[in-house]
């Protein structure tokens, strides 16, 4: 009879801690924004919803802000953070490299190129016209991964070194092309920069719904790949000798992680540090077993990005800082602090 391994591998505590962290982050994200909603009013609104009361101003406006602005935004940021955290962990496992992040093989540069190309076209103002930029970014991201994959292939195998080299080369090329396009662009420079800095998406539920199928597919696959990633840590040879179809598995995980990252990046722009740092923090605190590292990085990434977004929204009211700046400014020192406090040496 098979059952999940208790005690050592599947301790409940890490999940409990990270879920609580996420829950707190979600609550903060809903409670804080550029308009200050007093906690008393928040409480009244919550009770009002439970009783089915209709509000009058000022509660009516507050309730509207909560449901139509903050809730969809919270959902979008949560999903984006989950995608970045989960893919980051997967990429680090795939490439066995502590510096790996979801943008290693060019997803970000490809998305940026696609987005800037779309931004330089004057689409008609319509549903599809507005969707043009995220769709172009998405296609750009996946096309880049595909090209890098094809370039890196050697016979039947895809050596990770080749992937990294091809990714860096292609990424630089795409970035250079993007910069060139931006120089040529006429009035849309500001919009391009805003997109590239992250967080420049449309409000409402549409981006969330558009992202969801790709995220579910990508992250769902990743969550099932923990054991495979563990095996890959021993190197291609040993993993294969223990029974893993290395090339096939690597392709699958790469595709899943890239799909999730591409979807996240297409609607939220390029947000750094989450994919790099969150898995490391999880690893330092809860161990390197990928069966646990992946789901925890997913949850942790969601919570971390939510916190960063809250800071981005409230630090310079009513202006909003691009989230990418907050993740860099806050993430890097935080990570250094965690590193110093880590008891395990050679945890990697």
């Amino acid at each position, binding site marked *: 009879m098979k059952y999940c391994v208790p005690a050592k591998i599947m301790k409940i505590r890490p999940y409990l801690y990270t879920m609580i962290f996420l829950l707190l982050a979600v609550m903060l994200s809903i409670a804080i924004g550029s308009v200050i909603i007093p906690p008393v009013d928040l409480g009244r609104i919550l009770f009002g919803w439970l009783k089915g009361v209709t509000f009058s101003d000022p509660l009516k406006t507050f309730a509207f802000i909560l449901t*139509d602005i903050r809730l969809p935004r919270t959902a979008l940021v949560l999903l984006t953070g989950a995608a970045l955290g989960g893919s980051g962990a997967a990429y680090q496992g795939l490439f066995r490299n502590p510096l790996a992040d979801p943008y290693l093989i060019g997803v970000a540069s490809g998305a940026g190129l696609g987005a800037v190309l779309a931004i330089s076209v004057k689409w008609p103002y319509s549903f599809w016209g507005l969707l043009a930029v995220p769709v172009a970014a998405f296609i750009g991201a996946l096309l880049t991964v595909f090209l890098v994959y094809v370039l890196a292939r050697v016979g039947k195998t895809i050596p990770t070194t080749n992937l990294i080299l091809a990714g860096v080369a292609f990424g630089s090329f795409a970035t250079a092309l993007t910069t060139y396009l931006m120089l040529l662009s*006429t009035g849309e420079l500001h919009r391009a920069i805003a997109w590239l800095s992250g967080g420049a998406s449309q409000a409402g539920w*549409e981006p969330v719904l558009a992202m969801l199928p790709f995220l579910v597919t990508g992250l769902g696959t990743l969550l099932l790949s923990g054991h495979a990633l563990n095996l890959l840590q021993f190197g291609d040879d040993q993993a294969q000798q223990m029974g893993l179809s290395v090339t096939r598995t690597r392709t699958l995980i790469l595709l899943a992680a890239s799909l999730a990252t591409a979807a996240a990046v297409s609607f939220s722009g390029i947000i750094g540090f989450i994919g790099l740092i969150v898995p490391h923090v999880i690893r330092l605190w809860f161990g390197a077993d990928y069966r646990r590292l992946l789901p925890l990085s997913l949850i942790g990434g969601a919570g971390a990005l939510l916190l960063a977004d809250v800071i981005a929204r409230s630090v310079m009211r009513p*202006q*909003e800082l*691009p989230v990418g700046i907050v993740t860099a400014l806050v993430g890097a020192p935080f990570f250094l602090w965690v590193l110093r406090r880590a008891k395990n040496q050679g945890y990697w």
Partner: protein
Amino acid sequence: MFRKLFFVLLTGTLLAACNPVQTVSSVAASTESPATAVQAVPSITLTDGLGRTVTLASPAQRVVSLAPSNTEILFAIGAGAQVIARDETSDYPAEVLTLPTIGGYGGFSLEAIVALHPDLVLAQGGGFNSPELVASLENLGLTVYVLPNPPTLEAMYTNLETAGVLTGHGAEATALVESLKVRVVIVDEKILPISFRPTVYYELDATEPTKPYTAGPGTFVDLLIARSGGINIGAELQGQWPQISLEQLVVANPIFIILGDAAYGETPEKVTQRPGWGTLTAIQTGQVFPFDDNLVSRPGPRLVDALEAMVKLLHPGLFE
């Protein structure tokens, strides 16, 4: 016999219930004159810069401006009292500084805009306010109007008129347009007989003094320089905000150097000290002048102020 009576009564009641009352009321309605019907000013329907059809039941009384140009336009046509919030970069006229801000270059706060309950949000097209922002505000149930980015002065006049219609200051807008046109005609007439057109270099950014940014063809600066009787050396370059190398600048050797980046601290003295710039005639003859770029970069009535300021720099004797 009772049955017959019952039937008659029933029929009668039914007939009475159905028609006569209606007839009375419809007669009453048709005798009402249109003048006393509850119908105020006809609703406003316009097509904005993104091709959207925007409808207002009555002129907007609570306007949020998302661009400094819009703020200037609104105040210039007398609608200043109806503006309830501005973007961070709006700073003219001085009284707008008391208005609350709702964001700026770094992004706009949808929450703050919604909380103000505006009946109109005025945006600027041409890349200043993104279509995503417009869509977001639309989805939140707000009325948004995008003023297109005007490529010519005439298009700017149209925007003034549009703003007038939207805010119920149509007459003032028209008057403003007329006065602006008069001023422009005066400039045109003075410029016409002038045969000598000096070359002008308009500087936008010189963080890298060997490769500064200037205004290219098709920009308003380019237009203004031409209309002021000058020749923009940036017109030879590609793109709207091209970089010009110091070598090209030396070859072009403009007669005038106009510092559009004066607001960022550039002064004629500093320009004189830039290595390699000393050979330029403009520096040797002292024809380096600061310029308020806001006049030119904000497509509103102050464009005409810019035109007049430019003419005074390029042809000093003309207005004395």
